[in-house]
């Protein structure tokens, strides 16, 4: 099992049916966005209806706020040079012990 350094998500690189799994970090949560706004890392746009700056809880339902170090293991293309490159390396991964399998054979 792998743990993404950027988002902390954990995943198996191969799915149960034998296919590769391509992790991509989720967007910021509301709490993360609030922290970034308070730290002046993000300026929320004006609400087109009210004309005043959006609040984070509204902004997060209108667009996705991505972390700068996001990891996206999806390939850039299905042919050519991009077929060998993932979209974003991010901060890499660490290896964890595999979780218990979903099916366990119990001896008689």
């Amino acid at each position, binding site marked *: 099992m792998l743990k993404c350094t950027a988002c902390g998500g954990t995943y*198996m690189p191969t799915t149960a049916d034998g296919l590769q799994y391509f992790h991509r970090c*989720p967007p910021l949560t*509301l709490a993360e966005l609030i922290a970034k706004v308070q730290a002046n890392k993000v300026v929320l746009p004006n609400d087109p209806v009210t004309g005043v700056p959006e609040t984070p809880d509204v902004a997060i339902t209108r667009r*996705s706020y991505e972390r700068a170090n996001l990891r996206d293991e*999806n390939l850039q293309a299905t042919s050519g040079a991009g*077929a060998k490159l993932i979209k974003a390396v991010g901060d890499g991964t660490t290896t964890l012990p595999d979780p218990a399998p979903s099916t366990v054979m119990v001896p008689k």
Partner: protein
Amino acid sequence: MADPSSSVAPASVPSRGGVWASTGPYLRMDEDLRITSYNALASVVLSVRARMYEADGRVTDSIDSHTPNTNRTAATSIVRTAEGWLLGGEVFVSSAAPLIGQTFVVVEVVRGESTAAIATQLLAAGYVTAKQPLLFPQMFAQSSLDGAGALRSITGTTPAAGAEISETVPTGARWELLAFQTTFTASAAVATRIPILFVDDGANIFSRLYCGTTITASQAWFLLWGQGLPNVSEANTKTQQIALETGLRLAAGARIRTSTTAIQGADQYSAVQYLVREWIEGA
């Protein structure tokens, strides 16, 4: 313009009792077959067999193998042929057991043997499985988006505490989302959470599917979105099921993700499992 590569006279037309027997195209000395595959499954090996009616009247066979990539990217190989009439051939699975939707093959006539070989004629395109070879030449090419697709049950990423779920349609795939399930465990922090399933195109949200019942401190709920499900919330088993759009097809890069109103830092999504129908997009 004279063709310098054709070193022998064209073979006579194959016939049965003087009647023209339909065959494939005539391949010159500098023309071969190119096999291109797009595959998602591990350990798949394909066999390629072709029969030629050569210039000297002999019928010969070619037997080659082709190993696809396992990440839906294109893998190509050249099958060298003698000059003559292509009587026919097939591509079949000789290792592993891909499903419809997992191993798509294109067979072409090309001029040259390098990666820059020029395609001159499409002979066939379609999925291969352990039970279904791809025959060539064919009158009509299959699209990689044809057919029932491969049913896949996928375990997603377990996000960190306080983080949301986000699953992405892989490069080279197209999905139809059939069902999506997770468990949401609220921490002891007092708040009224409302999980929402967002579906977007990688940036722009086009579907928002709300859970009908709010989740309060220290509760754990099973959340299930599914095609054809009625919206039901059952408090005793802490299960909510929410209707999902029917026939929701998603291109590569599209995301299925949660956005949870009032999510707290120690709230936890887990057991992310979803069912999709998958095709090779090939783009």
